[in-house]
Structures are given as C-alpha cells and as structure tokens.
C-alpha cells in the first residue's frame, strides 16, 4: 500500500511559521549570547512580529486558501492576526525596560511571548477541532509560564497556579465538548460539522451539550461570567507586561475560535445558542462593571473592566449577523490598543519614586498630569476610550456591536450595554480625576520613561484617536473578514 503524503502550501500559514521560527531563534540566540546582551532579544522578537504582520497583510487577497481542513488564511484569520500582532508588538515595546527592572529571564520571556502569539494566531486560523485545541493549549501553556515567570514574587507563582488549575479545568470541558460533537457529527472538521448540522434537522441533545461545553471552555479563556473568577487574581499577580499582552491576546484568540465555531460550524443552530450568549453577555458586563467600581488597585480594576469588555464584545457575537461579527472584530482591534496602552502606563508609573503601590494604586496616579503630562494625556485617552466616550475608538466599537444587537432583535441587550457603559464611566473617570485634580505627594518624583514604552504608548494613543475619527479602512477590512466567515 502506498500512502501519498499531502502537499502543503506553507505560504498559507507563513505568518504563524515566521512567529514560531522567531521564537526558536530567540531561544537559540539566548543560548549563545552573554548576560549583558540579553536586551537585544526583544528586538529579534519585534522584527519577527512585524514580519508576520506584513505577511498577514500581504496574504490578504480575498482568495481564502486553506491547509487541508486544518488551518485557513481567510480574511477572518488575517484580520485577527493583525489584532494579535498589535498586542504582541506593543507588549514587546512595553517589556524593554520592565523585564530588566523586575528581573524576568529575557530569553524565556520573549520565547514564550512569541509561542503564545503563534498559538493565538493558529487559533484564529483553525478550522478543525484538533487545531483549535492544539492552538488553545500552545497559547495557554505559554501563558501559564509567563504569568509565573517573576520568581522573586510569591503573587506571581500564586497567580500562575490559579490560572493553570482553572485553565486546565476549562480545557477539560472544551475537549469533552469537542469529543461529543465529533461523535455526533462524525468528523472534527468545522466544515464537516457545518454540513452535518445542516443535514441533521433537529439537533441531538449530545450535540447541543457538546456546544455548551465548548462555550464554557472558551468562556474561561475570554473571562465570561460565570467563568471569570480567575481574572482579577491572575491579572494582578502576573508581571504587568504579561497582563497587557494576555488581557488582549487571549481574549482575541478565544473570541476568534468561539466565533468560528458558533457562527460557522453551528450557524444553522443560531436559535439554540444566541440567547445563551446574549444572557452571558448581559451578565458579564454587569458583574464586571459592578465589581470594578470597588477596586482601589488599578490592575484589578482593569481586570474587571476587561471582563466587562468581554461582555460588550460578546453582544456582537450574540447578534448573530454580519454587522455583529464585523463589530466584534472592530471591537477586538480597538480593544488591543486601549487596554494594552492602559497597562503600559501602570508599568511606567511603577518606576516613580514614592509609588508605594508599585504604580498600581490610584494614589500613585495622583497629580500625574503635573509631573508627566504626556503619560497623563495618553492614560486619559485610554480611560475615555474604554469608557466609550466619543469620538474615540471605544465609542465606535460599542456603537457597532450594540447597533448590531438591535438589528438582531436584541434591543434589551443594547439597553443593558448602554446602561453599563454609563456605570463604567465612573471608575474610568476616577483615574482621570486623580491624575488631573489631585495633588501628588511631594516624594513622588517621576523617573525617566523608557523610549520603547513611550513609542508604544504614543502609537496606541494615536491609533485609538485615528480609529475613532477615521474608522473607514478598518471597518471595511472587518466587514470583508466577517463575510469570509459567514460566506456570501
């Protein structure tokens, strides 16, 4: 018997391969260079991420090639690649000085950051249950280690343990759900599942249980209520640059796979999952916002805020239409800039002398406007954008997802979203008020901010203003991406 090996068009996954090879390259370079040269690893990583971004953009010609029912380089995957790579590039810029300050092992740090990025990109491209699972584990296992990489700090190890236990628990649910779906559909390919669902008429109970378990599994990754309890502890305990990266990247990847499974594979069962997602969305934004109101630690506050944002973004998915999907994609793209940017300011604030809370408490931000006007303006922009104040990117993103929800017949969900945005304005504005209206302590002397971090913050701030004022090009890309998924 002859088994002819399949031919692979490696160009389809060129961005992912570039990121993976860069990760291995960082590892090799880390082995051969001396201790004082480790800082250069960041630049190797950054070049790889930028090259992958360029390749993703270049690949995007609307032909949507696929790699054997396993991975696809369609508009949907490539658009999300851009959001993920933005998060990775910003995280690298924010880490330049921070890794040295906190004492993280740079070789491991950048290798794992890139591996995790590759996992996220693979997850966006995955069109098979197997590749979804593998991609999720690549990104999760790298993140478990990254969260616990600060070995001098007990909180870091503790956060890693919590993230690991709950993450592995969620993986179990996801895998069991996949197994049930495989049994009912007879295949692991999403296209095959779609065909089976279309042909099947009334769906079997096990199929729906499988889908439910998968939603729970993804819900953990993107921090939906009631699967969100790990989020504040992990975001607070992890090194801040890792939090900036994972708060964006893991969410984008989770939504990418959830969107593909729900909208594509189970597109014909919308009536069965839409209401579940809508209820989860309403719960998630409400719980996230109410908990965020009480936080004095900024990292914890942003963790709860990120839960709330998962709820807003989910509204786009629950809408179940093309507008909702492109709204979700735009939301994730805008969120990458504003959330990563906000964590960058916390990294910068941690260096200020007299920052008793490690730059993480509201007090550390008191009077920031007088000492570091540039950082304060950027932070204010991030906060206002997260709150959804026009004309910034966050406002448009919310407008798109809530508009789609209304069109999808979920008016109550849109009302929930708007009320929640108003509530959230309170805690975001509290940071702005603290920076501009309160006196800083005299001891709080600002330290020089690393140039790479300044560049990253400036880019993120400019991006959210541009996205708000001139969203046309990105919205068009998001629309094309949504159509690639939903099929014309």
């Amino acid at each position, binding site marked *: 018997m002859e088994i002819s090996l399949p031919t692979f068009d490696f160009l389809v996954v060129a961005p992912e391969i570039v990121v993976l090879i860069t990760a291995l390259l960082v590892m090799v370079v880390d082995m051969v260079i001396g201790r004082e040269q480790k800082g250069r690893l960041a630049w190797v990583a950054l070049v790889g991420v930028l090259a992958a971004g360029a390749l993703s953009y270049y690949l995007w010609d609307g032909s949507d090639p696929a790699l054997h029912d396993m991975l696809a380089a369609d508009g949907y995957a490539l658009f999300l690649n851009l959001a993920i790579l933005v998060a990775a590039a910003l995280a690298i810029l924010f880490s330049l000085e921070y890794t040295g300050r906190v004492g993280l092992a740079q070789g491991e740090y950048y290798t794992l950051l890139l591996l995790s990025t590759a996992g996220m990109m693979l997850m966006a491209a995955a069109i098979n*249950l*197997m590749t979804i*699972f*593998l991609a999720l*584990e690549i990104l999760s*296992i790298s993140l*478990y*280690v990254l969260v*616990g990489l600060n*070995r001098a700090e*007990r*909180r870091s*190890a*503790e*956060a*890693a*343990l*919590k993230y*690991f*236990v709950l993450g*592995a*628990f969620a*993986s*179990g*649910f996801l*895998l*069991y759900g*996949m*197994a*049930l779906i*495989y*049994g009912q559909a*007879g*295949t*692991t390919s999403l296209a095959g599942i779609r065909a089976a669902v279309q042909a099947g008429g009334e769906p079997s109970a096990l199929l729906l249980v499988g889908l439910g378990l998968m939603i729970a599994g993804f819900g953990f990754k993107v921090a939906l209520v009631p699967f969100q309890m790990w989020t*504040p*502890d992990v975001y*607070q*305990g992890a090194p801040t640059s890792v939090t900036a990266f994972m708060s964006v990247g893991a969410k984008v990847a989770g939504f990418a796979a959830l969107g593909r499974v729900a909208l594509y594979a189970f597109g014909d069962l919308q009536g069965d999952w839409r209401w579940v997602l809508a209820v989860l969305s309403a719960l998630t934004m409400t719980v996230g916002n109410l908990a965020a109101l009480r*936080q004095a*630690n900024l990292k*914890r506050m942003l963790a709860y805020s990120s839960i709330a944002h998962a709820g807003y973004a989910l509204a786009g998915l629950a809408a179940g239409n093309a507008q909702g999907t492109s709204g979700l994609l735009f939301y994730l793209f805008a969120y990458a800039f504003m959330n990563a940017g906000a964590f960058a300011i916390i990294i910068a604030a941690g260096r200020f002398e007299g920052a008793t809370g490690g730059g993480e408490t509201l007090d550390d931000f008191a009077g920031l406007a007088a000492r570091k006007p540039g950082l304060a303006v950027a932070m204010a922009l991030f906060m206002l954008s997260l709150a959804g104040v026009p004309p910034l990117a966050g406002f448009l993103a919310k407008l798109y997802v809530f508009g789609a929800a209304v069109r999808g017949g979920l008016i109550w969900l849109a009302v929930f979203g708007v009320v929640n945005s108003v509530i959230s304005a309170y805690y975001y504005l509290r940071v702005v008020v603290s920076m501009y209206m309160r006196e800083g302590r005299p001891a709080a002397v600002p330290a020089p901010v690393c140039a790479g971090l300044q560049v990253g913050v400036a880019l993120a701030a400019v991006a959210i203003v541009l996205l708000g004022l001139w969203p046309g090009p990105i919205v068009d890309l998001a629309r094309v991406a949504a159509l690639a998924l939903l099929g014309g």
Partner: protein
Amino acid sequence: MVPASYYLILSAILFTVGAVGVLIRRNALVVFMSVEMMLNAANLTLLTYSRFLGDVQGQVFVLLVIAVAAAEVAVGLAIVVALFRHEATTDVDEANLLHG
C-alpha cells in the same frame, strides 16, 4: 461486542469524578490528577466514537491530547514547585495573597 453506550457512560462518569475532584480537593497534585482524569475521559469518548464510526480522526486527536496533557502537567508541576519555594505547601487554598 460491548455496546458504545457503556464506554460513553463510563467516560461521562470519569469526567464527572474528575471535575468534582478539581472543585473539592485541596492538594494541588490531586487536583492535577483530577484534571488528567477529565482529559482522559474525553480521550475515551473520542476513541469510542472513533471505533464505532470507523473513522481515524478521533485516534489522531487522542495522540495529540496525550502529548498536550504531558506538557500541561510538566508546567503545572513546575508552578507548584515555584509556589512551594515561597510557602512550603501544596494546598491550593493556602494560595491566598490575591483576593479582594
């Protein structure tokens, strides 16, 4: 031949035992074992379906899951050791610095 439902019921029970174990056991190592049990319950389901559907994808999936589970548990043990260095305990409830 043993009917497929026997295997499926067994794996459902194993999965439930694993899930409950994660929730109620306190020793990190026992929690890891429970997670492994959940993954292996899913593996058993995959294999059952693979056998009864006459389709090989399920078996391939299981091989991948086994490799992933090994990597996962290696990282998990490393995290426990890291935490042990700080506080000399493997009780997950003792990890309580972060709360609020």
